[in-house]
C-alpha cells in the first residue's frame, strides 16, 4: 500500500455514515471486491480532503465506498464492497 498524508482511519466516517444509516456502519465488516480482504470499516483508510468521503481498502487501496453529501441529497457508492456484514445488537 502506498503511503498517504491527510488520511484518517475509517472510524472518522462514523458521523457522516450515521446520518445515512441508523446503525454505526464503521462497526460493520466489509469485503473488498478487489482483493477479498475483510475488515471493519473502522479499520479502513478514509480520505476526507476531497469532494466527498472515499474509503479505501487497507490492503490494496481499492475504493470501497464513496459518499457525497450536498446537504439536501447524498450519494452512496458501495461498488467496491462485495458485502457488508452488519451484526445485529443482541
Amino acid at each position, binding site marked *: 500500500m502506498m503511503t498517504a498524508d491527510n488520511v484518517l482511519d475509517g472510524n472518522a466516517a462514523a458521523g457522516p455514515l450515521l446520518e445515512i444509516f441508523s446503525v454505526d456502519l464503521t462497526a460493520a465488516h466489509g469485503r473488498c471486491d478487489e482483493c477479498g480482504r475483510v475488515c471493519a470499516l473502522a479499520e479502513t483508510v478514509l480520505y476526507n*480532503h*476531497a*469532494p*466527498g468521503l472515499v474509503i479505501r481498502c487497507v490492503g490494496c487501496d481499492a475504493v470501497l465506498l464513496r459518499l*457525497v453529501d450536498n446537504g439536501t*441529497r447524498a450519494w*452512496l457508492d458501495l461498488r467496491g464492497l462485495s458485502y457488508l456484514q452488519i451484526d445485529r445488537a443482541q
Partner: protein
Amino acid sequence: MGFFSSGFSGRGRSDNPDLPPGQYLTESFPVLSAGPTPRIATDDWEFTIATETGKVHRWNWAEFRALPAEDVTTDIHCVTSWSKLGTGWRGVSLDTLFSGVETSAEFTMAHSYGGYTTNVPLDDLLGGKAWVAFDFDGEALEPEHGGPARLLVPHLYFWKSAKWVRGIRMMQSDDPGFWEQNGYHLRGDPWLEQRYW
C-alpha cells in the same frame, strides 16, 4: 439589510468580479485527494490519447517535453468552494496534443495514475482552454499537486483538472467519471455553479 452598519467596507465575495458564485478566496493551495499520491518517475511516465477507432497516440516524457509549451496565468475554482486567483502554470496545450488526432467523438474521459477518472467534453479541452501542465509557480509540479503532470482545465471546477493524468480516451457519449458518478455535475462550470446533478 439592518439599520446598523458594521463599519467595514472590505471586499466580500459578492463584490469580487473574479469569484464565481458561492466561492471564497484562498491564498494557500489546498491539497485534495481521493487516494494515495502516486509517485511516478518521469522515466516511467507516458501520456496517451486513445480514439474511438482504437488508435493510440503516445508520448513519453522526453517526447512530451519536446512539444511547444505555454505559460498560463489563470484563476482556479475548487468545488469545495475555494478559489485561487492568478495561479501560474506551464504546460502543453491540448490543441497541440490533439493536432494529429483524428476523431469524431465529442466527449473524453481523462484517466490518471492511481485510477482517478473525470469526463470532459472535447470542446472544453480545445480552443486554448486546457493544458497538460508540468510546472507550477516556476517549479516542477509536486506529486501532491498532480506531478509530474496534471490536466489543467481552469474554466471548469478543479476536479476536472485531473492530477497525475496519464491519458485521454475519446467517448461517443458523456459517460461519468469518478465523482460524476456520485452526484457531481457532468460539466462543472463554476460560473453556472454546476456543482451537483
